[in-house]
């Protein structure tokens, strides 16, 4: 690394009102943005609010926008950023600001509560267990890698720009529904909700969510598009329509 210190332009404020402030702090090999934020917190701004836990990209707590890009701060290396200019760090835009880098993500937890939970079929074996083949669960395992960082929600324009929080559950929860719908043991039907309350139709497949997913989940192609197809099959199948079946 060429320089030994860098400037971080961090958003400071409460409930949406605030300003960017510049902090200069030493940088060393291997540092990530979260390290810099912590250093600033310890040395210059004890009350700088930031959420974090595992510091290894596994818990999804330290989501923020670094130089305008939705990122986990713990997985964003300084060596990948131009340090000759200030590094801007600001909270996720899609959620209400609480303070500094911390946003109110409670909406996500309320949305999940509204989704019908897992409902397994009767066990396959007398001892109450099931049999599943590895190849039949791989798609679901991909979805279950989600660490709930909500960066996909942050970048989704339906939420970010159009504020459809009341009509659209966002990519994170479409992935969640997909994980349930494609679970080999699940017997619940969530297609009517997908169409109405979950608003799957709002997604117009720009794939921004897929691009920012730190877990590399193919959100749009593997989760959302198949869900859209299920809704279309149920409600808009022309043959079923002619025969007058399957319409609710």
């Amino acid at each position: 690394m060429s320089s030994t210190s860098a400037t971080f332009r961090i958003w400071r404020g409460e409930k949406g009102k605030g300003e960017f402030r510049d902090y200069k702090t030493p940088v060393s090999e291997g540092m990530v943005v979260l390290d810099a934020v912590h250093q600033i917190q310890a040395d210059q701004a004890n009350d700088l609010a930031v959420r974090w836990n595992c510091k290894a990209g596994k818990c999804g707590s330290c989501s923020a926008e670094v130089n305008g890009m939705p990122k986990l701060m713990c997985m964003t290396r300084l060596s990948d950023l131009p340090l000759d200019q200030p590094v801007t760090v600001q909270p996720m835009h899609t959620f209400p600001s609480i303070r500094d880098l911390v946003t109110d993500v409670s909406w996500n937890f309320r949305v999940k509560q509204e989704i019908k939970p897992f409902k397994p079929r009767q066990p396959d074996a007398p001892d109450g267990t099931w049999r599943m083949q590895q190849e039949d669960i791989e798609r679901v395992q991909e979805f279950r890698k989600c660490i709930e960082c909500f960066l996909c929600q942050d970048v989704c324009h339906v939420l970010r720009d159009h504020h459809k929080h009341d009509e659209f559950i966002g990519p994170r929860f479409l992935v969640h529904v997909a994980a349930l719908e494609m679970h080999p043991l699940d017997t619940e039907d969530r297609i009517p909700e997908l169409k109405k309350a979950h608003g799957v139709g709002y997604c117009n497949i720009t794939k921004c969510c897929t691009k920012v997913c730190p877990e590399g989940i193919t959100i749009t192609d593997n989760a959302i598009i198949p869900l859209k197809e299920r809704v279309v099959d149920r409600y808009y199948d022309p043959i079923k329509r002619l025969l007058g079946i399957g319409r609710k």
Partner: protein
Amino acid sequence: MTEYQTHEHDVLVIGAGGAGLRAAIEASAAGVSVGLICKSLLGKAHTVMAEGGVAAAMAHVDDRDNWKVHFSDTMRGGQYLNNWRMAELHAKEAPDRVRELEAWGAVFDRTKDGRILQRNFGGHRYPRLAHVGDRTGLEMIRTLQDHGIHQGIKVYMEHTVTKLFVEGGRIAGAFGYDRERGYLRVFKAKSVVVATGGVGRAYKITSNSWEYTGDGYALAYDAGADLMDMEFIQFHPTGMVWPPSVRGILVTEGVRGEGGVLRNKDGKRFMFDGIPENYKAQTADSEEEGWKYVQGDKNARRPPELLTRDHVARKIMGEVRDGRGSPHGGVFLDIAWIKSRLPNGAEHIKKKLPSMYHQFKQLADIDITEVPMEVGPTTHYTMGGVRVDGDTQMSTVPGLFAAGECAAGLHGANRLGGNSLSDLLVFGKRAGEHAAKFAREREAVAIDAGRVDAAARAALAPFDRGAAGGDAEGPYKIQYALQDLMQENVGIVRNEADIKKALDGIQGLKQRAGHAAAGGNRDYNPGWHTALDLPSLLTCAEAIAMCALERKESRGGHFREDHPDKDPAYAGFNLVVRKGLGGRPELRRETIAPLREDLKQVVEENK
């Protein structure tokens, strides 16, 4: 009088990792009202970091496995200081607890015949760990979370508890604050479960996040409960050592379970030297045999890399100390070598260890399918904790329960990998069940208003100190000083002089913590939160150091270079710390109840 809000529940669970969630689910199923307090957001607790798997003798991969072998492995690993009743219940009940997760939606990796797959791990005789790649903890916490949110549990996210109330010799509730706005809260409860995890943050190099400041230990201690086995801290042998900013982050034992080997700078597999006597019969004596074992050959014995964590950590320290370490003060962990044995080696590694692959690629610019990792010990787990009854998980304070890492007993002097995830399921369930029972059989007790006021004043004291100036200082420097002190003096290798130095240092830090000040206001203010975490850290650090000083032998996670051998004179008791009269910690020896005859036989049969 300071303003606060009051909430009332039958059962209050403090901590929302695996143990807390499992306890809350069980209590709720018993029909009582349950409050669940998370220090962070729901689903972010340290369980999410667990990688390798959950130990349960389901015998899906090796039909020789059963609860008796698991019990014996756990007792051997714990050097027989374990609460054997807990070890028994754990081994017997873990399989049901794992199957239950599947009924709640967990998707474990599968065997060829469609059952839950199990893998090898250190100290387990047979492949026993149910897993999902190397993200088992995430699968477990998410399953419990997604099940739990539909059970009518009231969840308090981003709340921290600073005090437990005891009235008339019984638990009566808790006091805390919410991070977002700094509101103060009183939680009235008939019973309380502490499931707050460990105290890794007392050390500088740790795999633990900011939350693990030993809150549950300190709360229980303050309420009059016993802390037991606090000298036994697990230093996980393989944490990242480079670059500096990621030092301590965990590298799963699963790497070794999949065939990863440890080498020093000369390329030597040093683990073959100095295999402990009680493990010799079970350990491979050639590299070839070790490889066969990880490939599932039932006639082969496990490679020495899969010996218990305490032993592996000390061997690594030895290599580094004797100048045979890697460039950044660790040793080499090589999984890439298996490419010479497996046709699709690189793909196999990425499939079996996906998060390790990404962790090194992203944080250290290292491709683990090509080059070895550099690893060294990191503070990982607290074997000790709140002393509880093995069946009910109740502490010595009526109505106060503890589960998971927060409770002592199951692991004795050293925990086996994979036994933590099963611990939190088995004893989370038991704690929730018995906390609910306790609550149902009793009326609530009133909390004295004066005590509430005192708790409120203590919670806000850092702001007053900040405003007053004088000796006030920021809390971070004090926390760092403690972490350095503990790392240097009560770390992997200990001796009397160092431990005494730590005990002196802790007294000084207590003084400084009394002046820890916060600026700004109460809205999401980490400086304030850190100031309030300091007393917990210091209480735990003192208990750790006191026990470490008293145990003049080396056993499990506790190594004394001035007493390097196991001493039979120390085999028959646990060390217990309790708050004495005058508020000073008092240490005593608690004799271990003799092993039940049938269990003695089980141990003998599985020697």
